[in-house]
């Protein structure tokens, strides 16, 4: 019995990581209706940037975030202004295919630069530290990851609803033309949104790298987890995305408990069940 409770707790904490994968995806879809197929590859790229930072400067992976977040945010802004803004319009094909091309480029650039060997970020003592709670051992790292996920989502909510940048996001999301008339530069606003999204991906990538080993090919899988969390939680609802991540994580750990081969499959099945009975997700945003 306690094992099952343990699996549910593990899954819940894993869900925090999935929510971090999903938050960036959800943010840019909300602001500019763009689905970034390369999102998972940006997460993996962040993990590799973290690796290089720890190896070159000798920083702890968490300290490496001071380098990785600004680099990814800058990359996001540049990419949005230089490439992705040109793909936005009524046709869904250009953004999809361009980000798909980016995904292949990033994946192969990482293969070229770092080889296909699995890598890991060395987090030191925190990786094995655990808290004992009523017979359950809870890892400090998963707990910290979950706490960071909650903080990031709270932070994004605050940015969205309490800052002038967030007002810009909401304005272009509601109506791009009128937002332009009100003096917003939509190209710049989209650039900021992508910078923020990739900044969050940077956090997700480094936490992923400390938690497990990674190689250049795993980006697609991370995109799918993030996407499933978004759809389960309901489009446009960041707290829903966290719940979606938790449901996905719990489904995976419970599946793994039954049979290790069922871990990923049961996550996907949970997603398909939600899609079948609640196509708009569990907590869709209510438009006022």
């Amino acid at each position, binding site marked *: 019995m306690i094992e099952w409770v343990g699996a549910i707790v593990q899954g819940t904490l894993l869900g925090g990581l999935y929510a971090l994968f999903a938050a960036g995806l959800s943010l840019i879809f909300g602001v500019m209706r763009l689905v970034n197929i390369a999102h998972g590859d940006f997460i993996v790229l962040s993990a590799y940037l973290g690796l290089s930072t720890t190896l070159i400067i000798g920083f702890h992976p968490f300290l490496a975030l001071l380098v990785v977040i600004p680099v990814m945010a800058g990359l996001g802004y540049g990419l949005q202004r230089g490439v992705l803004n040109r793909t936005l319009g009524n046709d869904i094909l250009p953004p999809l*295919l361009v980000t798909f091309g980016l995904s*292949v480029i990033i994946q192969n*650039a990482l293969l070229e630069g770092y080889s296909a060997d699995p890598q890991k970020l060395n987090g030191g003592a925190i990786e094995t530290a655990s808290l004992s709670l009523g017979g359950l051992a809870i890892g400090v790292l998963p707990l910290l990851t979950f706490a960071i996920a909650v903080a990031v989502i709270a932070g994004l909510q605050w940015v969205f609803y309490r800052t002038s940048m967030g007002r810009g996001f909401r304005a272009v999301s509601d109506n791009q033309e009128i937002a332009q008339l009100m003096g917003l530069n939509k190209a710049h606003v989209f650039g900021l949104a992508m910078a923020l999204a990739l900044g969050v991906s940077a956090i997700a990538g480094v936490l992923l790298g400390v938690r497990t080993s990674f190689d250049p090919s795993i980006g697609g899988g991370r995109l799918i987890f993030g*996407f499933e969390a978004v759809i389960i939680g309901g489009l446009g609802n960041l707290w829903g995305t966290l719940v979606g991540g938790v449901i996905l994580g719990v489904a995976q750990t419970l599946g793994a408990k039954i049979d290790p081969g069922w871990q990923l499959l049961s996550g996907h099945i949970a997603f398909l069940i939600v899609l079948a009975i609640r196509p708009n997700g569990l907590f869709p945003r209510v438009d006022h």
Partner: protein
Amino acid sequence: MSAAFVTRSTPASRTAAVLGGVALVLLVAAPWWAGRADMRLMGEIYLYMSLACLWNLMSGYAGLVSVGQQAFVGFGGYMLFALTIFGGFHPIAAIIVAGGLGAVLSIPVAALIFRLRGAYFAIGTWVIAEVFRLSFAQVSALGGGSGSSLPVGIIKSLAASRSGREALSYWLALGAAVVVIAAVYLFLRSRRGLALTAIRDSEVAASGLGINIWRTKLEVYVVTSAFTAIIGGLIFLQKLRISPDAAFSVNDWTAFVIFIVVIGGIGTIEGPIIGTIIFFALRETMADFGTIYLMILGLVAIVVMLKAPKGVWGLIRNRFDLEFFPVSYRVQNKPPEKGS
């Protein structure tokens, strides 16, 4: 006095038909003039051309952008193995049945993922492909995660000699490409094809004209899935070995196909054919560069999408007003008859 009339064929399309017919005769005769390695390569080209034409029909015309067609490629491959090994089917019969099963399976899949819009539909198709991959990896009778090989007896049932088998496998691939291209062409010339073209150009306008968009898209999805499963069966009949990772590879069966269609020209019949030729020309000259080659391919696709969204064929068509597969209508003036 000259009378205007409406026609679909043009001098270019009639010339293309004649040249295409001659080329087809030459290609059918390939087992008598081409080497073993060349035939293998050409077989692969035909199968990629078929996948590209099918993906183009679905994504370029019906607007169902999928990054999960490897689901049906792998399904077709696995059905070939399962039906021949456990069902005692002849391989060709197994491949045709695989197409039928692919069609049946695609209906519940569509019922689920058609709930997702646009780009989310694309990722939904990828999830389905992952579900297929993980499920087939659980089937220990088919080798589980490590896969299995086609037994020798089944391979021999195709033809007694090795050269006979290679020729048959080549003709099957060529036949599949011809059938797929002809089917796409005839479909687009038909009444339903007209509806589909209308949907491609504007969904709102098309539904205003009384076209049932959901139903038209579903039909395209089911037909594409069935053909894709058949092509998958043929691919793994050439490879003779299957594993979940090879069968449901997003790079091999979707990324390359998307690049082919985008570079050749999405939303045209000629585009995927030209794209396949460009893709293989690049691959044969640059494949030694491995990852760099793939990065260049990705870059070319991005540049094409941004600068020339209708691809290489779109550039040619705009420049010369050509159409090798005439699906549009043209008004022409009949020259005045002599002696009148």
